[in-house]
Each structure stands twice: as structure tokens, then as C-alpha cells.
């Protein structure tokens, strides 16, 4: 069996597909929620926080695995704890970074401890760190669906003030936006999303779902409509595409997802810099004919 057969193997693809439609559905749901939350992660500069939350979520999940609890509940508890700690202690960006830097190894260490004590299958252990393709059973899917609905509903309510508070906290506060209250609200939404993402991509690679798609979208557009739409599309293509490619191989799911999302980011980055060179800044988007370099400058 060659190395390529290990990575890509499409024998009995139809049967596998039928078996794993839960995973594909879960991937699509995660793409939707992760793509939207990612926009605000970028706007609020919380990339590092995502990583910190995911490590504590991993600790919670492995604790749940050890004591025989629901793993989703365990990871939710871990990530909410992290979100609260980061939200309460790390109001300023600098403080936040150091608190996350302290929390992250602690969470990872706890997780490793619980997993070492866990007597069960090692695939379950490894899955929490690097993602897993199997084991999205019906109850788990209901959990994911329910939490996603909660996060999406909350996003729909707070979208405008949250965007205002993220872009411009001072002016938003002057306009009566409850800037301080929105911060923990967003951290809770983020915590829930991270806890779900861990079930599919694993703790180490949550960023590829919560940061990379939004970052890619923001390279090619600044539109208030297209940034979230593209971010969701990129995240969904990464998760669903990654799962479809991973089906037959014997490799964890995350390399497929991270590679797709990285490739999308690279393409967007190239497109974005080409567009910037053409003088994107001074003309309305779309209405820009090929003008000589510098013609758009005032």
C-alpha cells in the first residue's frame, strides 16, 4: 500500500458516504457557524484567544472521555471556562495575550494527563487533538445542531452592535451600544463554537476553521455582505471538502481541512495583492477599468 493510497483512497466510496453523512452534515454546520464567528474573531483580533480556548476545551473533552461523560458537554465546559477567564481578566489586548499564554499550556497539559489515564481506544484520544471522521453519532449531531442554532440566533440579534463595537468601541459607546456587555456575550458564542469545532478538526487546528476562512475573505473584499458570505463558503468548502477527501484514507481528517483552507487563503492573498496594485483603494469596486498605475491616486 503506497503512501498515496493511505492519503487518498476512494474504494467503496458510496458506502462510506452513506455511513458518514452525519460527519458531512456536522462539517457543513461547523463551516457555517465557524465562518461567521471568524469574521468577528478577525475584527476583534482574537486569533490567539481562539487557540487558548481550544486547549482548555480539549482538556474538558478529555476529562469527559476519562470519566465517561458526554464529550461535547466536557469540551463546552472547558471552553466556556476559558472564555470567561479570558473575558474577565483580559480586557486589554496585552493582558489578554499573557493570560492566554498562561492558560494554553495548562489546558494542554491537563488534557494530556486525562488522556494518559484513559484506558480506552487511542483513536479516541488522538481524535480530540487532530480531529476525527468517525464517531459523529446522532446524539452528537443533535448537540452540534442545537448549539449552532443558539449561536446563530445570538449572532442574528447582536450582529450590528457587535460589528460597531468591534470596529470602533469608542464611537459605539458614545452611540449607546453596550460595548462592555457585548464582549462577554461574544466570548460565550466563541467558546461554544470552539467546543463544536474541536469535535471535527481537533483542538490543535481550530484556527483553520475560525480564522483562516475569514482572513482569506478579507483579502479579497471589504464588503459588509461579501466578507461573511465568502468566509462561510470558504469554511464550508474546507470542512465538507476535507471530510469527502478523508473518507477512504487512514489519516486523521484535519490535514485535509487545513490544507484546503490554507490553499484558499493563499489564492485570496495573491488575488488581494494584485487588486491592491491596481489601485483598489481610490475607485469604486467593480467600476474600475484597467487604468495606468497611479491614475487613481489623488
Amino acid at each position: 500500500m503506497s503512501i498515496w493510497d493511505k492519503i487518498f483512497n476512494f474504494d467503496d466510496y458510496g458506502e462510506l458516504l452513506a455511513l458518514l453523512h452525519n460527519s458531512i452534515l456536522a462539517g457543513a454546520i461547523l463551516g457555517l457557524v465557524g465562518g461567521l464567528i471568524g469574521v468577528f474573531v478577525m475584527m476583534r483580533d482574537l486569533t490567539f484567544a481562539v487557540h487558548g480556548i481550544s486547549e482548555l476545551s480539549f482538556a474538558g473533552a478529555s476529562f469527559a472521555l476519562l470519566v465517561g461523560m458526554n464529550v461535547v458537554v466536557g469540551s463546552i465546559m472547558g471552553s466556556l471556562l476559558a472564555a470567561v477567564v479570558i473575558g474577565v481578566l483580559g480586557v486589554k489586548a496585552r493582558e489578554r495575550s499573557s493570560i492566554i499564554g498562561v492558560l494554553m499550556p495548562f489546558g494542554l497539559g491537563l488534557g494530556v494527563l486525562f488522556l494518559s489515564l484513559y484506558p480506552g481506544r487511542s483513536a479516541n484520544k488522538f481524535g480530540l487533538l487532530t480531529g476525527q471522521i468517525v464517531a459523529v453519532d446522532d446524539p452528537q449531531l443533535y448537540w452540534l445542531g442545537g448549539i449552532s442554532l443558539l449561536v446563530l440566533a445570538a449572532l442574528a440579534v447582536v450582529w450590528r452592535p457587535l460589528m460597531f463595537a468591534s470596529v470602533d468601541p469608542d464611537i459605539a459607546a458614545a452611540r449607546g451600544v453596550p460595548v462592555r456587555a457585548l464582549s462577554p456575550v461574544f466570548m460565550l458564542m466563541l467558546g461554544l463554537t470552539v467546543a463544536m469545532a474541536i469535535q471535527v478538526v481537533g483542538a490543535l487546528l481550530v484556527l483553520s476553521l475560525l480564522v483562516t476562512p475569514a482572513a482569506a475573505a478579507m483579502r479579497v473584499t471589504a464588503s459588509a455582505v461579501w466578507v461573511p458570505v465568502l468566509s462561510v463558503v470558504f469554511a464550508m468548502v474546507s470542512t465538507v471538502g476535507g471530510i469527502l477527501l478523508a473518507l477512504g484514507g487512514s489519516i486523521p481528517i484535519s490535514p485535509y481541512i487545513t490544507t484546503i483552507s490554507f490553499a484558499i487563503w493563499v489564492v485570496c492573498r495573491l488575488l488581494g495583492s494584485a487588486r491592491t496594485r491596481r489601485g483598489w483603494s481610490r475607485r469604486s469596486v467593480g467600476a474600475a477599468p484597467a487604468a495606468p498605475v497611479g491614475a487613481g491616486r489623488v
Partner: protein
Amino acid sequence: MTEPATAPAPAAVRPAPAGPAAPANDPPALQLRDAGLGFGRRTLWTHLDLSIARGEFVAVLGSNGSGKTSLLRTILGEVALTSGSGAISGRPLGRGSTDVGYVPQKIAIDAATMIKARDVVRMGLDGHRWGLPVAVGARRRRIRSRIDELLESVGAGEFGDAPVSMLSGGELQRIRVAEALASDPVLLLCDEPLAALDLRHQQDIAALIDAQRRLRGTAVLFVTHDINPVLPYVDQVLYLAGGSFRLGRPDEVLTSAGLSELYGAPVDVLRAQGRIIVVSSTEAVGHQSHDDHAATELGGEWR
């Protein structure tokens, strides 16, 4: 110098401000009554009576730490007055509202934030409302034309669709003014909006704010360390220093005698080429020139 005896009755003696005549019974855009603010044992100012009518332009001057920005923060409701009371358009000061437009000192938007200038202006219009920023049909067209109108009014029509990260300081400041004016506030608070701009853009933005307050009858409270760019437009000057203040027309407040009394040290107010320069021989006023370069050029009296 504890009593601001020099403060004239504000607004009442002033000619009606330019702009649409407000009905006589309208409350002033901003009213502070016997207001005081201090932190711990330090008093920034006390017994401040300030009334700004609709369409009036008030400049706030003073050295660093004299409480200029704190004054704005009390009006924004972020800091409570230590004594006295205040009201915006008749309503007591409280946590933010659409009656107030705010142009902050820090105008920059994080470069990683990809957002179009037009969407920043839209935040001033409806960014404080709950829900998704989705509008369809007539409402969508109405929002769009309102934003276009705001962009045109600040001369930003050309770069309305550009991401803010690609705008220059002067362009961004225009967007900020449009954003602040979007909700048609009764009071526009400006915190050193010219600080980051070169001379030409300072004059442009000052003229722009003046034009808008005439057009809309918006009262302007304009914190600045340099009076000169706004001197042609200013109705009243509030000069904060040393725990006290002076309030009145620019030619009443910005006098050698007046500022010397306020600082308790000899201060010269020079007028040259239509500009005002404050020069002092003491450290107390040292960091507090209205035009640092000009004062330095004027020679040894500086410090």
C-alpha cells in the same frame, strides 16, 4: 482664582447662532449647571456653567491634564460629574445616545479590519440597533441614498467604496465626521480631530464641521490644543487651566491679562497674521502653546 468670576453669561449675550433658527423654547443642545469634576483629591474644574445653543461652535482649550478630554467623557456619560448637573437637549447626561455625534481623538481603524468607508458611515446611522444589517426594497434605497448624501457632504463621495485601511488621515477624518453626523445629532463632540492632520487638511476639516453645523443646526463642542484652524468659526472659548476656567468670546478669553490670571503666571497672547500664539516664561504653561512651531520660532520667550 477659585471662582471663575470672569466667566460671562454664556449664550444669552450672544447673537443668535448661524443656521436654522431653533424654536425659542428648545432646550440648549448642551447645558452644564455648576458642574465640577475631580479624581480623588485632584480637582479638574468646578462651578462650570456652560450652555451651548443649537448651531453654536464652542472650542475647549487648555494644557494637557486640564480636563479637556474628561469634559467630553462626562458629556458622553462615561464619567459622572463630581458635582452639579448636565443635560443634552434637556435630557440628563447618561450613557451614550444618538443625540450625540462623537469624533474621537484616535481616528485610525485597525488595518486588519476590512470595512468599506461607506459601511463605517452606516454604523453611525443604524449600527447601534439590534439585528442584522439587512435591508430590502425602499428601505435599502433610502439607507443607500442617505449614506451617499452624507459622503458627498463631507467630500468623500469618491472613496466611499474604498476599504478604510487604504485611506489617508484626512480622508479617514472626513469619514469620521460623516459617521458622527449620520444620526443628525444635536451635539457634535470633537476630541482633537485635527491633531493628526497637516495644515491644509486641518483647515478643510474645520471648514467642513463649520458648514455642517450651519446647515443642520448642530451644536459643536470642539476640544483642541490649537485654536487657529477653528478661530474663524468659534462662538465661545472654554479655557481650562489650573483647576479653573474662563469662558467667553475668543477676544475676551484669549487675552494676556485673562490667561495670566488663569495660570497665575505671566502669559502673553500674541496675534500675528490672523493667528493667536500663547507664550509664557514659566514651565507651567510651557507645554501649552496653541501653535508650538510658531511659538518656538518666535524666539527665546518660549520657556
